[in-house]
């Protein structure tokens, strides 16, 4: 091959001026496959072996084996964006099915083929609100109890726009509607509310939030996750204009924070949607086929006027999410969602029996998780969490006097142990 090109060595092909060429050592030792596998097995074994009762936006549900096996097929895993739809019908159809499952769950007609995660999806929703807003105004209202990852990501997303982010308070763990009514004004372009909240409470006032937003022509962005959407009020039915949240609660196990952003919205925002969209099409043989569509919104065509800079997204996770949802079916998903309520209620009741410990802190229905008060126990929250850790359990601490506990089918087997340990630690 070198002869064909007419050079003696590959080095001759490099056109890097001497002054900037690198001829030093990086110092990365080459290892065999076996060595890397065993090195990393050892590295990961340094994570403590804990049963996690952790949530707050990142959830662990059991992922059926079918999902791992079929998503690993190399035609899926090693492909890329479907620039040539004729040879990538399989992935396009899977993404179309993912979009369809989200439109069913949200009741909104448009869902994109994925954002990076819930936080970036929220950032995109704010930028969409700025683009579609007819009147002037520049305030985005979010709950004060928003996970910092969402708050800060949103702040970065809007920093280059005219938007500013303001917060409204919660009362008893969900929207304080009077305070929200005071906060909403002509400046408001978007009101964001979530259900379940970061503390696991099911929001009872969604329709009021939607109405308040509507009164000033602001958009209502509904935040949730794909499992909760299987049970909770359909976003469109309560007046949501945009739905954002976590889609990978189906499809991925706990993955150290990796997720997938769910993004759905009203039809009239179609040309302002960020990210990839797959649509039905027809081929030369007049058969129905699929293709990426409305690409003129996107960065590779519209450049600085694109609706977003997103290019690579979370397509493969979206495929897994669709596979997981399809495996569950309507029954299975509704059931998983309802169990998420029952488990949370059940565990909270057991914990509430412990002297000096109260749960749930908020007098609300809960989904998967809830907060626990140790205010009346002789130990504070971090001492309690440290004590639980010694027993092999991980829980969140929220301030000095609260814990947060998340229960799903993956840690349910350990709830008795958790309750016993909590009793001991707080005695």
């Amino acid at each position, binding site marked *: 091959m070198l002869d064909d090109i007419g050079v003696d060595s590959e080095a001759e092909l490099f056109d890097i001026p001497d002054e900037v060429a690198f001829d030093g050592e990086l110092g990365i030792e080459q290892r065999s496959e076996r060595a890397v596998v065993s090195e990393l097995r050892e590295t990961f074994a340094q994570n403590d072996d804990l049963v996690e009762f952790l949530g707050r936006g990142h959830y662990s549900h059991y992922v059926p084996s079918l999902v791992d096996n079929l998503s690993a097929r190399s035609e899926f895993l090693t492909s890329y964006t479907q620039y040539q739809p*004729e040879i990538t019908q399989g992935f396009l159809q899977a993404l179309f099915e993912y979009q369809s499952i989200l439109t069913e769950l949200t009741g909104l007609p448009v869902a994109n083929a994925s954002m990076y995660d819930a936080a970036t999806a929220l950032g995109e929703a704010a930028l969409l609100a700025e683009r579609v807003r007819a009147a002037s105004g520049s305030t985005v209202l979010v709950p004060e109890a928003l996970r910092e990852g969402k708050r800060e*990501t949103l702040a970065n997303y809007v920093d280059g726009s005219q938007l500013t982010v303001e917060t409204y308070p919660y009362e008893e763990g969900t929207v304080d509607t009077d305070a929200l009514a005071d906060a909403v004004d002509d400046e408001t372009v978007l009101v964001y509310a979530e259900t379940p909240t970061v503390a696991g409470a099911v929001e009872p006032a969604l329709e009021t939030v939607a109405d308040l937003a509507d009164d000033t022509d602001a958009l209502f962005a509904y935040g949730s996750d794909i499992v909760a959407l299987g049970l909770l009020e359909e976003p469109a*039915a309560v007046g949501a204009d945009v739905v954002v949240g976590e889609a990978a609660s189906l499809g991925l196990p706990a993955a150290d924070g990796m997720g997938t952003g769910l993004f759905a919205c009203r039809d009239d925002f179609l040309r302002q949607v960020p990210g990839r969209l797959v649509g039905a099409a027809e081929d030369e043989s007049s*058969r129905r086929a699929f293709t990426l569509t409305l690409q003129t919104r996107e960065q590779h065509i519209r450049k600085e006027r694109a609706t977003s800079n997103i290019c690579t997204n979370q397509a493969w*996770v979206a495929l897994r999410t669709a596979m997981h949802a399809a495996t569950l079916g309507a029954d299975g998903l509704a059931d998983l969602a309802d169990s998420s309520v029952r488990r949370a209620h059940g565990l909270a009741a057991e914990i509430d029996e412990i002297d000096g410990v109260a749960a749930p802190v908020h007098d609300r229905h809960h989904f998967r998780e809830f907060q626990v008060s140790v205010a009346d126990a002789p130990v504070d929250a971090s001492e309690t969490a440290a004590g639980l850790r010694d027993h092999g359990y991980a829980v969140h601490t929220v301030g000095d006097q609260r814990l947060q506990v998340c229960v799903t089918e993956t840690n349910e087997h350990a709830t008795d142990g958790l309750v016993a340990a909590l009793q001991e630690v707080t005695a």
Partner: protein
Amino acid sequence: MRYDQARYGDEDRYQPLLSEKDSTTVDPGAGSALPDELTRDSLELPSLSEPELARHYTRLSQMNWGVESGSYPLGSCTMKYNPKFTEEVAADENAAIHPDRPDETSQGNLKLRYDLQRYLADIGGMSEVTLQPPAGAAGEFTGITVAKAYHSFHDNDKSEVIVPASAHGTNFATAAMAGYDVVELPSGEDGRVDFEALEAAVSEDTAALMLTNPNTVGLFERDIVDIAELVHDAGGLLYYDGANLNALLGRGRPGDMGFDIMHYNVHKTFATPHGGGGPGAGPVGVVSELAEFLPTPHVRARDEDGEIITDGANRADLTYERYEPPESIGKVHGFDGNWLVLAKAYAYIARLGDEGLRDASAKATLNANYLAEQLEMDVPYGPFHHEFAATAGETDAADVAKRMLDFGVHPPTTKWPEFVPEAMLTEPTEVEGQTELDDLAAAFNAAVGDDEEALAAAPSRTAASRIDQVSAARDPQLSWHALDDNVGTDSERTAADEPVAGDD
């Protein structure tokens, strides 16, 4: 080579949708633990048995093309083979943890993160690297946000980001998203940055120049030192788009060239699977003056005496902790980025080591040059590194690409970058052997030499024949709820063209 893709379906459609097989509707609220007013009363989803689902997805996979199906020389995308063992590594159950665990209980994952930060910093010639951005474009946004924070910290009044015309669309979109005016820089006659045009464009308003090197047609920006000096003298920062880092592995480091900020596109350079469009990861490296602005949390290491160790990759005696850099821009992702992708990238880098990384850039460059040599097409500019843009000349590059599909290869990126007419941006990567490159060249040559009729009729061996993207965009049907009955039955095809540039 002859190729026929699997094609399931009937006269009206290909593989039926999940919803077209069987669905059930339930009332999730009935019997729920939640009161009625909080629940939905209807949910309809497909209802298939596990074997039916397994068949559905197997068939869909057979109607798809991946790197393991054959050549995939999509320019700028670096479609390498994705080593199998990295999947095994990432699937380790001990690594499947929640990000909110306390540091002392997640030392394993933190160690990998720290070691990867160090590897990437060394590979790029940077001081510190954040792993948080979940893709290349997210890395760009992080990097430009860091630049903005730096300028505002120093009270520099900056309003513009300069982007070469040949840059990827994400560069323009990122700069605009961060609130900067975008100044587009025309390409020079030799396909590189036109230094005079750059001198004219740079001013005290310049916050940053975004550049990739080698550029988007594989040409090294020979004036990089002067370019850096020009931008720095105006108080601007130099941003490196890491999409093309594969060409430089072990041979050139953006940090040594004067770049201040860079992203690494790990799904390209470090062989993590592209997954049909993601997930990727876009870590960002910065020089030491910018490290204090990086996203939070950042991972650092301490030795047994509690001393902070800034360069301690692969040590067994350190403990790892997350902290907030003093002037941090905050977060750019809800948690800490695409963990599974990062774990695979670490495994790949560790497997290759210095030697393997240098081999990768050598072989990638050799392959691109060899392939360019075999083409009976004009390939303007040069000398190339890992990729080149051939031109289809008078022929529509999109047609040539469709015809190539019939020869059992994936075509290159078409019609981009725009300064090469009817561009076919080709990046074979280091993974192809000579036989594959010869087959690929044969596919190019056969396709580009074909008559109009053959081109218009292509592709014929893929699952679907030529797809009418224009009508699809005119009458968007984005879910199975929206399907109207016309799709799949006869309707006029239109000739008008929605831009269908494959990008990168």
